[in-house]
């Protein structure tokens, strides 16, 4: 019999107010008529209009999406491979170094990752631009992917794969037909994580981007350093909206699958 005491209700209410109120204010004031962000002067959507006609933002958004899609896709492939190596490959020369390199970027301060990659690109004479940002983002997000996927692989029942081999699959077929479908949800969430990290990244991108490529966070950064602006509020609202819709759709889909599965199981029980 669990009762929610007043203490628990209060902590949940205050906690979630703290987490969500700032974003809520951001959204509300994006519909503010006034140029002064903190003074309410009536409802208006004009900042959205200005934002959508501002080529600098649109270009930056396009670059960001390109970088995020490409880097998270490569990172998912490499990260899944790395996870398989970590969990399945057994011992090999330099295994400790390998797992160290997988985990280190997760705790490495972004300024250091950015700095070191920049020095590398300068050292080998690579021109900085979209390509270098993709390389940088792939490198750190593959580590996140491999952590997510290896957590799933660790609990994976190996006898399933052995059953596939027993039934005549080649190792590659067994992986493609049995292992991959089962770990697929973790691979997908790995991709989503990599995608979000790439969309979100400011520090590493500002080290590795050249003058030719500006991502959205870099563009946002240069304008918010000076102060708050209603245009940025509008942009934030759009981004928050996209995430919220994405998360709600994802949770509805998973709930739907769960209910479906439950219904199937019940039907099976009735015979």
């Amino acid at each position: 019999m669990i009762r929610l005491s007043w203490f628990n209700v209060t902590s949940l209410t205050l906690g979630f107010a703290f987490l969500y109120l700032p974003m809520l204010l951001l959204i509300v004031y994006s519909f503010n008529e006034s140029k002064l962000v903190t003074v309410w002067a009536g409802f208006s959507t004009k900042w959205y209009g200005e934002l959508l006609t501002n080529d600098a933002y649109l270009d930056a958004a396009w670059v960001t999406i390109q970088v995020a899609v490409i880097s998270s896709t490569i990172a998912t492939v490499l990260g899944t491979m790395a996870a398989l190596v970590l969990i399945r490959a057994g011992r090999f020369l330099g295994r400790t170094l390998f797992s160290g390199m997988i985990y280190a970027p997760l705790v490495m301060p972004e300024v250091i990752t950015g700095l070191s990659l920049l020095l590398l690109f300068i050292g080998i004479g690579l021109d900085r631009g979209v390509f270098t940002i993709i390389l940088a983002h792939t490198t750190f997000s593959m580590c996140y992917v491999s952590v997510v996927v290896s957590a799933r692989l660790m609990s994976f029942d190996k006898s399933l794969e052995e059953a596939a081999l027993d039934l005549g699959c080649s190792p590659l077929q067994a992986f493609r037909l049995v292992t991959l479908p089962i770990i697929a949800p973790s691979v997908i969430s790995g991709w989503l994580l990599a995608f979000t990290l790439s969309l979100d990244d400011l520090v590493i991108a500002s080290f590795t981007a050249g003058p030719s490529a500006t991502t959205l966070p870099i563009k946002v950064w240069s304008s918010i350093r000076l102060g708050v602006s209603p245009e940025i509020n509008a942009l934030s609202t759009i981004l928050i909206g996209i995430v919220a819709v994405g998360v709600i759709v994802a949770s509805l889909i998973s709930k739907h699958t769960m209910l479906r599965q439950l219904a199937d199981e019940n039907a099976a029980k009735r015979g």
Partner: protein
Amino acid sequence: MRRALLIVVPYLWLLALFLVPFVIVLKIALSDYNLSIPPYSPQYDPSSGWQGLRDMFAAFDFENFVFLTEDDLYWKAYLSSLQIALISTLLSLLVGYPIAYAMARAPEQWRPTLMMLVILPFWTSFLIRVYAWKGILSTEGYLNQLLLGLGAIEQPLTILNTDTAVYIGIVYTYLPFMILPIYAALDKMDGSLLEAAEDLGCSRLSAFWLVTVPLSRNGIIAGSFLVFIPAVGEFVIPALLGGSDTLMIGKVLYEEFFNNRDWPVASAVAVILLLILVIPIVLFQRNQQKQRELDG
């Protein structure tokens, strides 16, 4: 053969784009600042072969590191980063523990939703979430408007561009990292342990201190490291919310590199920062390892 390919591809990628860059940082940290392009010496010229390599090593020195200890800007920045990170971690714990506790005590069917609500901010842009506080904390901001309106204060408070704003920013940004491991520990806890404690004579409160807190210890430790480690090297939050006197090493490094173009000193700053972080990272790894052994 296939196994070798599986290992080699991610291995080479990480070697080339993680380890090699880091070796370069180390090399530049040991070099001298120069008004050339790139702005440091010695440079390695592959055509000079063995001898060139030896000359390069001979020219290495710890001058930059010595410089870091002499100029009090740097060691003050390190200390103040650690201090800010530590205070923010404690604040996150104070704010996060009650939330995690209430989540673990909430009815079973609410918990996935509450979890999602904690994780959701993580998916929205970090930059935007920090930026949102600029509007709240500034002198004309929403907080001051509210407090003035309520008559709680006469003069607007100066919070933006102070260390307080940095604390708020870090707590706000990293709170989910604190809540989730503590929640996981509390959620896993066997309810009969609390009943056993009560049965053996504990009051509710003493059962909390003697059983709940020790059993969520690993969650507390994990959460604290997850907040502390990134907070030490944080750049965006002090740059956006902190004042000109807010010293954090991430900011110093960024400015050293982009504004002063002193690559060797920036690299040395990075190397020292990493050495400082090695201690908490190793401790964190140990804690995780121990946790896994207990679970396994």
